[in-house]
């Protein structure tokens, strides 16, 4: 079960024609798939489309009613390969993953798929993770679309446009026998909006129809000579078909304006930001009426030469608002205009930055520059006057003053995270055996590279933690450590990291962090999840899989919070003379998910009168000296600082706040790292038994008596 439940919201998927749908972008996409008569959906989670996977998962009943199959793929490659069902059969299928990392993984299948082409509509919905909040390398999906000839839709970021793009995307795919990629940016995925709904449609042709009437077309398979024909067919048949469909259906949009000698060409996804920028500089209103003519590319690949020419002809200059680099669209527009012998100046990256997110301020500044260069006369009357000088100076001074007092707040391990003690143990081993090379993977564990742990040198991709250390395979008494999460392990790691290490006789140490979910993407289940999942097969052992590919030295630790054992096991792995890869499976449930799972149960038990013991930690301020070693070995959000109650001391003391879930790490660290004796564990007993009460009574009497005796000897009241 994922971190966020859409169980309530998916009910909206049932609304039909005549009703208005209100909700988030990802929910709208799901609704659009159902309205388009999709037969199957597959994907792999990852922001910004994690929630799309969660929605689909929570909507499984509705999907089944409509005869739609939903698959939680093992990887993006597996998801993309699913689209093979649309090659020979008129089945509409959609897959979804994060771009460009997912596209990277999927590219083998995507290239094969687009070579042979499709019969049924094939839609690849990619969540473009470029700019703020992104956790991946900054690249564009555009290159993938171009290299494999997949049409790329980049609709305006409002729900009606996105929903329309899904529907038209299937039609375009079928009309041109080409897979279609629909790109949605992170904020569009999470935008709350509305659109007029239609009825859901059962697929006309079903998966059962296909299985019972199997078809094959050898000329659709990528093998010579068909593959050479595919390449020609792409240009001679599929491209013109796509251009015709896009033109006939007016997928791109033209907006007129009175400043006819200039124009703006933009990716559909840039529309809202561009319009707001124009509005702020006084060239548009809040309803989309613009004085500058606009050409909105809801289809960014292929470009429609005739439309570009029509828009640019007679203008002094156009500016291309195209986020990211290289500037494929701007280059293509230049080529198109040159071939048509049109001399309109093409601005774009000359006015706007080559790299980085096109936020409101960036686009406003770039467009101001453009208008000033070509129509300075219209910039005179600005409806939003710039702040007065006095105010601007005040702001500048304030910004400067606070600068050193605003620190970064990068994400880190959650309260009680079971991964934290693994890195605490690594820190302790590092103190004993010295620093060494650590190769990381993708997932929550990668927060180890940040303070307070500062562990890890590289990350090469999902499931590639072990592979990233594979060059360090020489005779040495300082083997490298590779870290991989359970998500990465099942995605690609079993073969690429572990199998690879076995085959190449590596002596490196591999830590597999098994928290029971793909936690970083929102807690989805995977093969080794401990949970019962009625639509998936779980509880498959990582240790068995590892042994299956030939690892002999495997230790599974089922309680990561036991720092001493973790430290000792790691030390043993690093120093053993055993040949071959050493694998430690460090197993404890993701605390975020665990809390979500057990909290309601505990509340119910307490209410029902059952004896429940809640544990949490605390620090005695009078023995804490404010050195904060404990925080440097943990970083837990519930472990923070507080003013020192001792008038003689000024350094803040450590304090455990009430969000503590009592995971036990603080106590283990205090023991293993020989810290101060300030930590205590409080066990709070709800609904005590008679025996509890009896014990407590006796105890309180004796202890109370001794305490009084002690107090009499004390000089001061305490």
């Amino acid at each position, binding site marked *: 079960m994922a971190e966020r439940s859409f169980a309530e919201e998916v009910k909206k998927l049932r609304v039909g024609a005549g009703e208005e749908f209100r909700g988030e972008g990802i929910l709208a996409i799901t609704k659009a798939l159902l309205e388009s008569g999709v037969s199957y959906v597959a994907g792999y989670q990852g922001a910004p489309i994690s929630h799309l996977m969660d929605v689909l998962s929570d909507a499984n009943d509705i999907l089944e009613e409509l005869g739609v199959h939903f698959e939680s793929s093992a990887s993006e490659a597996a998801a993309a390969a699913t689209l093979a069902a649309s090659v020979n059969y008129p089945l509409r299928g959609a897959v979804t993953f994060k771009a460009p990392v997912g596209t990277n993984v999927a590219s083998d299948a995507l290239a094969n798929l687009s070579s042979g082409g499709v019969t049924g509509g094939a839609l690849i919905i990619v969540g473009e993770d470029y700019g703020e909040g992104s956790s991946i390398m900054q690249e564009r999906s555009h290159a993938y679309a171009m290299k494999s000839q997949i049409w790329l839709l980049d609709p305006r970021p409002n729900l009606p446009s996105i929903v329309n793009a899904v529907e038209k995307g299937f039609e375009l795919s079928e009309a041109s026998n080409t897979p279609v990629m629909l790109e949605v940016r992170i904020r569009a995925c999470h935008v709350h909006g509305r659109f007029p709904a239609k009825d859901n449609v059962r697929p006309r042709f079903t998966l059962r129809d296909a299985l019972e009437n199997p078809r094959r077309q050898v000329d659709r398979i990528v093998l010579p000579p068909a593959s050479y024909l595919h390449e020609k067919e792409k240009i001679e048949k599929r491209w013109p078909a796509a251009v015709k469909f896009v033109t006939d259906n007016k997928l791109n949009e033209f907006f007129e304006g009175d400043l006819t000698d200039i124009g703006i060409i933009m990716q559909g996804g840039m529309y809202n*930001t561009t319009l707001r920028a124009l509005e702020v500089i006084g060239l548009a209103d809040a*309803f989309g009426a613009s004085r500058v003519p606009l050409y909105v590319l809801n289809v960014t690949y292929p470009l429609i030469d005739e439309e570009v020419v029509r828009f640019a002809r007679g203008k002094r200059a156009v500016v291309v608002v195209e986020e990211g680099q290289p500037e494929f669209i701007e280059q293509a527009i230049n080529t198109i205009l040159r071939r048509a012998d049109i001399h309109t100046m093409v601005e774009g990256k000359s006015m706007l930055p080559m790299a980085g997110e096109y936020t409101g301020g960036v686009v406003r500044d770039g467009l101001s520059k453009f208008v000033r260069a070509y129509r300075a006369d219209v910039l005179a009357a600005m409806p939003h006057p710039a702040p007065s000088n006095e105010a601007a100076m005040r702001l500048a001074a304030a910004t400067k003053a606070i600068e050193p007092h605003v620190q970064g*707040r990068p994400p880190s391990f959650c309260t009680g995270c079971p991964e934290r003690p693994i890195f605490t143990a690594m820190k302790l081993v590092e103190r004993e055996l010295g620093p060494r090379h650590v190769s990381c993977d993708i997932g929550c564990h990668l927060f180890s590279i940040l303070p307070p742990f500062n562990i890890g040198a590289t990350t090469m991709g999902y499931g590639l933690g072990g592979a990233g250390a594979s060059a360090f395979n020489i005779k040495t008494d300082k083997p490298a450590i590779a870290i991989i999460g359970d998500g990465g392990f099942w995605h690609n790691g079993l073969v690429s990291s572990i199998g690879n290490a076995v085959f190449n006789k590596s002596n490196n140490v591999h830590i597999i962090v098994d928290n029971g979910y793909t936690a970083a993407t929102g807690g989805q289940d995977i093969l080794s999840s401990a949970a019962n999942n009625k639509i998936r097969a779980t509880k498959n052992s990582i240790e068995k899989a590892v042994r299956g590919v030939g690892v002999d030295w495997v230790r599974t630790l089922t309680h990561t919070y036991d720092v001493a054992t973790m430290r000792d096991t790691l030390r043993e792995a690093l120093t053993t003379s055993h040949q071959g890869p050493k694998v430690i499976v460090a197993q404890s449930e993701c605390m975020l998910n665990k809390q979500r799972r057990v909290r309601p149960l505990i509340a119910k038990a307490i209410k029902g009168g059952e004896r429940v013991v809640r544990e949490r930690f605390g620090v005695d301020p009078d023995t804490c000296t404010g050195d904060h070693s404990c925080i440097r070995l943990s970083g837990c959000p519930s472990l923070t600082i507080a003013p020192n109650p001792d008038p003689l001391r000024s350094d803040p003391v450590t304090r455990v706040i009430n969000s503590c879930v009592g995971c036990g790490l603080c106590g283990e660290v205090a023991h293993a790292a020989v810290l101060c004796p300030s930590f205590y564990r409080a066990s709070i007993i709800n609904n005590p038994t008679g025996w509890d009460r009896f014990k407590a009574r006796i105890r309180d009497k004796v*202890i109370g008596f001794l305490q009084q005796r002690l107090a009499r000897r004390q000089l001061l009241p305490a």
Partner: protein
Amino acid sequence: MNAPFETKTRPITIAIFAMGGEGGGVLADWIIDLAEHNGYIAQLTSVPGVAQRTGATNYYLEIFRRPVNGGREPVMALIPMPGDIDVVIASELMEAGRAIQRGLVTPDRTTLIASTNRVFSMTERTAMADGRVDEMVLFEGCRSAAKSFYAFDMASLAEASGSVISAVLFGALAGARALPFERGAFEAAIRRGGVGIQASLVAFTAGFEAALAGTSAPVRAQAPTGPAQAPAENAALAEVMREVERDFPPAARKVIGTGVERAADYQDLGYARLYLRRLAPIAALDSGRDERARLLQETARQLALGMTYEDTIRVAELKIRPSRFARVRAEVRAAEGQIIEIAEFMHPRTQEIADTLPAPLGRFILGNDLVRGVLDRLTRKGKTVKTTSLRGFLLLYTVAALKPLRPNSLRYGAEQKSLEEWLETITATASKNYDLAVEVAAAHNLVKGYGDTHERGRARFETLIKTLPHLIGRQDGAAKLAALRKAANADDSGAALATAVADLEK
């Protein structure tokens, strides 16, 4: 142009700066619901991703008066534009600073609603001493960057009303009158939300009223002070306190009084008198040099801490006091009469055991490989002691009862010797360079903690003392030593201090 051009109608833009898991999403949903039920179109976007894992998280909303009679639909932005934000809501003071840094708070239009509480950053929390940023600078920055500023400690209000900060922020938003809706409309949105309605409404009211009352500056939470403020009932102690009044300058009396009480509590009255005897020559150094008696004050503070070093006896004694039991109960919010059990995490090693024993015995243990080996093995693992169990309590009680034997212990001798040396250094320095002597006194603050921390601190303190010959003749000697102390607290490895010392000796 395909439509009439209208520049008067604009959206109201709202940015929320929060941290993952704080309920920023709930607040955003309330605002959406509020707007949609009151004739507005609302749009919300956020960037969740991994930022949810305790990192900075923000939400952006635009609300727009719904067009009448099927009028034109507005185009709403998905990204906040610097200089174009009407309302910024920050759940914490540093996050408010972040909003300013991103240009989203401007003096011509932005209403800034911020909670003045602090959620300390990783950098602040992991500092080896006091790494907190200056909240007053942040507060004043907010005040001058915003058009209007509503700020108070909303985390405390949330806590007092048994709710979360998002409800208080929502109340403050209503109280700030930054949106065109009445209070009742806000409360209706909370009711429609359906979760924790009553607590949310209480917190909402608290936020609403506090916003009406106006902004209040952040108060660095003051922890309640311990025995220092309790009246000295003991007659003998009272007499020592009179000596403090008689023999020491007014500026230093408070800290010396605290030191006397601490020493008496730690050992006995004789120990308190020893404390005063040690301070007397320092007081003489101050007279005529400094009205504020800086040297005396700093020495008195550090000497009190140095003389009451935490050994096993002290820790055991502090752990079993009734006041401590009460503090734990309060801290974990145990209800009246609820049974709680307390377990301590202790790791006494051979060193600490030998330290507690009479000096000859302690030295024997540390010097004898066989005995030491056995003890090392026995103490390799930490011990968890249940103070609330009879067994655990009696164990600690017994250790605490060793107090009268402390002056004979190995550690006592070593500590007193090193304190005497430090006092001599102060005296010797003061005659040549008063300011440097104050810093020498302050440098003893490095000696703190237990186990590794204590050893590291002492080693660094000694490193500092060794630089004195380089500093004593210099006018900026005190500043240099202060810089070294800062470097000593810069990292675990000691690299910063090593570099600073090397630079000094160049």
